[in-house]
């Protein structure tokens, strides 16, 4: 009996190994690291097409090679003869520019880009988006909306226009396969059926105002969702076939001066007029949330994510990298 008691006690002691919790580990396994700054590269918007990046600054649209973040260089500069470039889109080595003139089509297929064609539009244009064979443009002073047929790029033709009767000016325009979404400063959104671009048809006028008094900064589309940025919030809406917008989530930022949002594949980016850059988790597109915050130290006006790099224009270029925790 004593032998059994001793054996039992020894077994019990040898078994004691209380370990109820693990040490803390990084939640998302990533962090943001500053890579470099390029004071020689300045701009307002950066768009990528393949290995090329296009940046506008004043009346200049410059093409850069972005193969390696350590060796970004310019190799094609276009200077608009019509003044400031307010917005642009790039497709198949052609840039479509919104300016005080109207629409400018720039050919970047050559080493020296040149004005391929243009279309004068009274009062100029402020926003441009390209979809299929058409360019959709908006002018925010008189709230004009234009559709231009670019089947023949040499001869762009305006095929329809619409005037939005609203005292608040247009803040932006986005296009998906069915609708054009025009955002006004007071958070109103106008939906136009673009199934027949030659005949713009207003299908819906939705107010996204809220009781907190916040107002619209910009909207962007990604697949079935619309992301609506306000000065302190990001709201997510689901897009349905019936042209209704259904709000499904809303998150707040610790800054009350948000000014830009980019929605990528895996991550999103929200830029603020403060010190912080917010990296958004888009694993659940219906429920974006903040996954990392990087204190840059100064405000940013534009940002975009490509591969694992964050490109910010403040207005000069700063590059951050999304890295995995070891």
């Amino acid at each position, binding site marked *: 009996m004593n032998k059994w008691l001793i054996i039992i006690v020894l077994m019990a002691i040898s078994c004691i190994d209380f370990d109820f919790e693990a040490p803390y580990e990084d*939640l998302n396994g990533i962090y943001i690291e500053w890579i470099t700054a390029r004071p020689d590269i300045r701009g307002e918007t950066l768009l990528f097409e393949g290995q090329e990046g296009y940046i506008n600054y004043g009346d200049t649209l410059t093409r850069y090679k972005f193969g390696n973040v350590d060796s970004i260089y310019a190799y094609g500069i276009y200077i608009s003869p019509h003044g400031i470039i307010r917005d642009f889109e790039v497709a198949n080595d052609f840039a479509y520019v919104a300016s005080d003139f109207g629409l400018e089509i720039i050919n970047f297929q050559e080493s020296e880009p040149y004005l391929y064609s243009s279309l004068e539009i009274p009062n100029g244009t402020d926003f441009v988006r390209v979809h299929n064979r058409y360019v959709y443009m908006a002018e925010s002073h008189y709230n004009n909306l234009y559709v231009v047929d670019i089947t023949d790029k040499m001869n762009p033709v305006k095929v329809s226009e619409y005037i939005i009767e609203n005292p608040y000016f247009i803040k932006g325009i986005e296009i998906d396969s069915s609708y054009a979404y025009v955002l006004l400063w007071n958070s109103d959104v106008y939906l136009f059926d673009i199934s027949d671009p030659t005949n713009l048809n207003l299908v819906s006028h939705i107010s996204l105002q809220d009781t907190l008094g916040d107002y619209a900064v910009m909207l962007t589309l990604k697949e079935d969702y619309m992301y609506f940025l306000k000065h302190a919030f990001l709201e997510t809406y689901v897009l349905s076939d019936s042209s209704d917008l259904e709000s499904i989530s809303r998150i707040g930022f610790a800054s009350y001066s948000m000014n830009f949002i980019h929605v990528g594949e895996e991550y999103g980016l929200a830029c603020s007029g403060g010190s912080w850059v917010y990296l958004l988790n888009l694993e659940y597109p219906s429920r974006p949330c903040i996954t990392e915050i990087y204190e840059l130290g100064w405000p940013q006006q534009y940002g975009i994510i490509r591969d694992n790099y964050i490109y910010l224009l403040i207005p000069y270029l700063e590059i951050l990298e999304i890295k995995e925790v070891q």
Partner: protein
Amino acid sequence: MNIITLFIVSSMVSGKVFNLDSKLPLQAHIFIQSLHQTSICDSLGEFVIHYPPVGRQYLIVSHVGYKEETLNVHIAEMDTLYLSIGLKEVSISVKPVEVSSERIRDIYTQTIAQEEIHIIPGAEKDVFKALQTLPGVSTPSDYFGLFYVRGGDLYENKVLLDDMEILAPYHYLGLGSAFNTDLIEELEFYLGTFPARFGDAISSVLNIHSKKSNDMINGTVSVDLMEATWYYTCPLNKSIAFSFSSKRNYLDFLLEKLGVKESVILPYYVDHQAKISINSAFGDFVISGLKSKEGTNITASFADEILKLEIEGGGNSIAAGWSKQFTSSINCRANLFYSDMNRYLYGEVPMTPEHSEVAEEEVNAQKYGGIFRSEYDSDIIDLEVGGGIGKYMFMHTGPKVEDILYKIGAISYSLDVDTAGNYRYVYASQHIALLRPIICEIGERIDWFPLIEKAVFSPRIRFIYKTSPSMYIAYGHQHQLPPLEYTLAELKSSYAKCLSCGIEYLVTPTLLGKIEVYRKDYDNLVRKYGDDDFRIDGDGYASGIEISLRKYRFGDTFGWLSYAYSSSKKVSPYDAVPLVTDVHRPHLLNVVLGKHFRGGFEIGIKYQLSTGLAYRPLIGKEYDWPSESWKAVYAPDKSRLPYYQRLDVHLEKEFSLLGFEGELYITILNITNHRNIQGYLYSSSFTERKAFYMFPRVPYVGIRLKF
């Protein structure tokens, strides 16, 4: 005397005869008095009597050198009986014949005997831990004795003690059951479709049968690392006997004296259970009662978080029952019962370094009433009718403290309700032999739930094809009063429609193989529409397959091997859309083995392998302007924790000391020290997380003395 009835196969009486002391087999003679026939046991002590005569029979068991015994056995038609008979050597006759037994009452019943509970590692003192080893039963944690059945919720299970409803069967946080295993004869567990006798449950019914008092004074005292229990039974005379048991955990007391109480949340609990049995010419009377109490007052530290928890609560249940066998065919029972539970909880949980969430919750429930039941059992017809009437009172104030502790999907506002209502029910069920070997069982139950005007009907039907193997198909409706703490504009009973079918095959007289497929559809479940807006229009489903092989304990070995696959989604008061429940484990493998060796050794092994629990991962954060603090954002879908695995071992050695017999045991839980993740804790900035685990490798020793 206990009889083993296996509710399958053709008419047969079989069994084993052994030396009561050494457990060695005996080649005894079995004489059937009515037939004047003798069967002889083989070298393993086993015998088989095919097609025995139906009715009450006398079997005389004899062997040279041993005390001859006469068994009074009731054999029904198409019954299979297994008898395990121990004979005492004729020179010493201190104890009566010991017959170990197990009754499997119905195809949809699972049973576990007390001897098995004591050997299952971790279940020595907790019946619910034994239940967690059965197919179709899941649990949220090693720490808890809670059980969730086939994708159902905890409140959908009903727990009875000798047919008396227990409103507080779990101690708070589910750390253990209120029942002393020494006073338990057997667990009878119904999944799927229940007999019409049971109602107000849509997931499972657990009916705990307490021991019948015998004609000798005896008892046990048991002490281990966590708990002390004692049990005492004493016959006052030939007609009256009483049993009493108590248990208390004392680790909190011990740790406090040792000055080790930080980072430990361990409520104390005390349970008392008593039973008085009176046999008279007017029938058998039983008065049984259960009183439990629990509490804690803890301030615990977890890294940079201070958590405060105060619990106080308990439950009382008492029932007075009467039963009488009027004739060999007619049996009547009635009982009056009262049951209550009360619980007060206070929790203070840090949400951020600057802000703590504080909540107080109070729950009180009372139920009392009377039950009547009558059975008519003859060769031609088998009928049961019964009913009950009573009153149910329920009060709840405050938010759900449990939710705030878990910080996820919390219902943080107050759920205030104070209500009461009468209930009644009637039922009838009948077995009908249609065309042999097909048997049909039909039942109907009508419930009038408290606060619900309309009566609800719960039909049940079952067909059994009694051959070898036997097959069955069962379908039934079950209704339940929904949880009353949620204010509902319209109150309706929640209900489930259950369909199950299966095959059972008796490989040997004690080895049963079973496959069951089931489908359950829920309706009228409580779901959340918005803050403080609950409606009872939710639905859900559960379906699955369970495969098991079970060796019943006759002799020295018992055990079971089971695999269950299930799929389940339901709405809940936290979700408006059907989602996987947190406790649901799609794949669940259980292995339980117990064996008795010569020299008084016993070993019990339990192994579980399953899918991990579902949980909602934290995916980021957002800034909450009103509180000026960060808030966690959780994924809309649930993910799964890593798989769960645990191997437990129980070793026991009998001994004699100063005239007492006893057992010394050691149990090692999670002997491989597999780190099963219970969940994650997050830093206050929501940028880091750490896993916290279920049981590590935990040994404990215990001693059980019998007198």
